[in-house]
């Protein structure tokens, strides 16, 4: 009889939905049905049974083809690459568990790696802004239970975090928000009329690249100072009207995404959005939150935080000191300047997301990719080590976008003989120790 596994944590986006149910085959090997997940989340579970899944490490041959090798051989090759390279980019981590990260960092400290996660091409600019001005924020449960003014600025959860709106931000009825959607005023600020904008009470179409100016105008209006007739394509009257409505709320929240982090101004856009939030606290309760995208990227920032004190782009290549400097220790810049001697990618696909120049540079270096699936990065790697899917075939801790830690669940068995990230990293760590004890490579 197939059985139903409940309370599963979705391993896709930063929302970490914790109410997924799967029907699992008798032999505990196949997920037959996924309930409650969004289309993207369901697909993540279905990847588990993709035909043609790679279950053993593959090594690149001189003719360019891949040949299956044992885990032992792949781990030995990886450890030697790490020990030999004076500076290795160790990028990714967002789809693995915090326990695995911790082991990875230990390796990085020994071999002089630079540990970076996908914040580097995502909410890194938000983290820079927070390093500059702090951030008043809250958990998503606070939003569900209290928020009556919700602003989505430069983000489109209808596509990127599909269940965010129903679980936390627009529709749910909470302790102090018994009217659900009807008790909240929803604002969407975007340069396009998105699907999220369709459910908003007020849509504000900002001219592309004018987010900083418009946020500045919101601050100005909040302080009751004079405004020009129009800012970023939005009339003065509209700005004043919205700010007054926000002030009348009991609990406001701003969610922001790539529309702020990756348009002109970048961290300065976030900086002023945070400062608007601080100002609004003089009138009512107001918070702000980054819509973290890639599943456990938040967890990577946390583990790096407690071990080294920086949330991403942590350079351990000096081996006696951790350094963090955007533009200097960030992955894309390191690759563009050809500064690393080897690349170690895990649980993220830079090949699909980094600028082409960076990946061209990467493709010329010894490269290992640890990932459950074939992806753009595995195709430019010397070794691909497939592993069990975290959150589907093995458990481990992950952090939601509001930094809440959630222990994920194993739903089905991984294909026979496949190792987990933790196991592979533990073995690499041991092999690195042996090599270093023997005086290097």
């Amino acid at each position, binding site marked *: 009889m197939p059985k139903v596994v409940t309370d599963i944590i979705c391993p896709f986006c930063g929302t970490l939905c914790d109410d997924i149910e799967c029907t699992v085959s008798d032999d505990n090997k196949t997920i037959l049905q996924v309930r409650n997940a969004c289309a993207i989340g369901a697909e993540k579970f279905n990847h588990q049974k993709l035909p043609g899944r790679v279950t053993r490490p593959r090594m690149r041959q001189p003719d360019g083809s891949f040949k299956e090798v044992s885990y032992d051989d792949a781990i030995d090759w990886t450890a030697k690459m790490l020990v030999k390279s004076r500076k290795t980019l160790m990028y990714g981590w967002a789809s693995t568990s*915090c326990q695995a990260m*911790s082991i990875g960092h*230990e390796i990085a*400290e020994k071999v002089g790696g630079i540990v970076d996660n996908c914040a580097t091409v995502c909410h890194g600019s938000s*983290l820079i802004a*927070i*390093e*500059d*001005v*702090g*951030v*008043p*924020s*809250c*958990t998503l*449960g*606070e939003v*569900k*239970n*209290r928020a009556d003014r919700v602003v989505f600025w430069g983000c489109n959860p209808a596509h990127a975090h599909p269940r965010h709106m129903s679980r936390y931000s627009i529709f749910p009825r909470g*302790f*102090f928000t018994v009217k659900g959607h009807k008790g909240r005023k929803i604002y969407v600020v975007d340069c396009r009329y998105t699907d999220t904008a369709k459910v908003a009470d007020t849509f504000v179409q900002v001219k592309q690249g004018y987010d900083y100016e418009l946020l500045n105008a919101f601050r100005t209006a909040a302080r009751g100072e004079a405004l020009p007739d129009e800012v970023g394509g939005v009339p003065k009257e509209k700005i004043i009207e919205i700010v007054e409505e926000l002030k009348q709320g*009991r*609990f406001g929240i701003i969610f922001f995404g790539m529309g702020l982090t990756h348009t002109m101004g970048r961290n300065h856009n976030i900086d002023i959005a945070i400062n608007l939030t*601080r100002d609004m*606290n003089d009138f*009512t*309760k107001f*918070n702000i939150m980054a819509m973290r995208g890639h599943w456990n990227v938040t967890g990577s*920032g*946390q*583990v*790096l*935080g*407690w*071990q*080294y*004190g*920086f*949330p991403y782009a942590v350079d*351990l290549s000096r*081996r*006696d*000191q*951790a350094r*963090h400097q955007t533009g200097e220790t960030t992955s894309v810049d390191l690759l563009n300047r050809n500064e690393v001697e080897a690349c170690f990618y895990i649980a993220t696909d830079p090949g699909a997301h980094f600028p082409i120049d960076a990946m061209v540079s990467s493709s010329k270096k010894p490269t290992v990719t640890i990932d459950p699936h074939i992806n753009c990065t595995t195709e430019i790697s010397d070794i691909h080590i497939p592993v069990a899917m975290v959150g589907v075939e093995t458990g481990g*801790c992950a*952090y939601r976008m509001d*930094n*809440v*830690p*959630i*222990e994920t669940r194993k739903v089905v068995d991984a294909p026979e003989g496949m190792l987990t990230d933790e196991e592979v990293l533990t073995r690499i760590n041991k092999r690195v120790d042996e090599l270093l004890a023997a005086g290097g490579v």
Partner: protein
Amino acid sequence: MSSSQPEAFKMSEYIIKNGHVFDPTQGIKGDKTDIAIKDGKIVDKAGSGAKVIDAKGKTVMAGALEVHAHVAGPKVNAGRWYRPEDKHFDSHKKPGITRIEGGKSIPTVFKTGYEYARMGFTFAMEAAMPPLYARHVHEEIHDTPIIDEGALPVFGNNWFILEYIKNEEIENTAAYISWILRQTKGYGVKCVNPGGTEAWAWGLNCLSIHDPVPYFDITPAEIITGLIKANEFLGLPHSMHLHQNNLGNPGNYTTTIDSLKLAEGLKAKNNFGREQVLHSTHIQFHSYKGTNWGDFESGAKEVMDYVNKQKNLTIDTGNVTLDETTTMTADGPFEHHLHSLNHLKWFNVDVELETAAGIVPFIYDPDNAVFASQWAVGLEIALYAKDPMRCFITTDHPLPACLLVADVQEGPR
């Protein structure tokens, strides 16, 4: 990473020679005597093969305990990563140590473990664990080397607790506390700014113990009394651990004494020989007279006179060291207030059901009269204490001051 240590320790014998030994439980006050250790325990005599540790000119005592500090969890970690500049002051790898150390006022887990150990500490209690973030606290404790850590979950603004106490259901309050302690692997009942932090979720606060908590229709006084009673109902090893309302404001010593009076007539019930029912933490911050920072003065005498009289109270000092630090507390409204004083970067995390933490970098400048007075008030508290067994020395690391920079060079104390 520390898993191999107990094993190695177990197999060995040590003898600590020539040190001045202090053991208040046996009345040993600085006698020059040897201590033998076998299989991790103190014994009368060690074998001839015992490793000799020469402690000449040094104090030998039981490992120091930090009863109230912020060493692990979401707000501590936010303090770490949002202050990259803190790593510029002091960040390195010391010889003989296996992991990189980073941070000055708010050190990484590695540095936290190493520095406490260097100062002779063997244990630190994380003083505010939001139940929702318990897993994070334990992940950091797991990664902290050498020292032991425990954590106190916070209860003073918990929706269930507020409801139970309002209905005078002490047994239900106790049952809920028991469940949370088990779920979060907590060690006792912590209460931070009772009612005030819940009010902060609406941008408000409770500055006296009789201010009503919005919606819940209950006062801080009722919360404090209810939690003490529930704590004694359960017979927990620790008394209720209170961070009082109205922290850091001139004139707050009356609020402090009012809160302490709530313990009058309440008796400790437990199997641990504990007599106190209430521990009032970092009391230096709650012992101010005056009406503003201009006529601000010490209320240490008034507060300590009361503490000395009441046998069922314990306190810790909460000393300020005059230094740069990263203040952090589960008293969200206080940190907002602090931010409005110095306008440095403000971090706030409101958590559903219970607590709201705030973080603000702060410089306790020795040339500033207020900070210098706070430094003196902390000393007065300890000097006025008649019973040293009811007064603990703390700095509330890293809130008012970073304990970990306090003269590390002095070696073990």
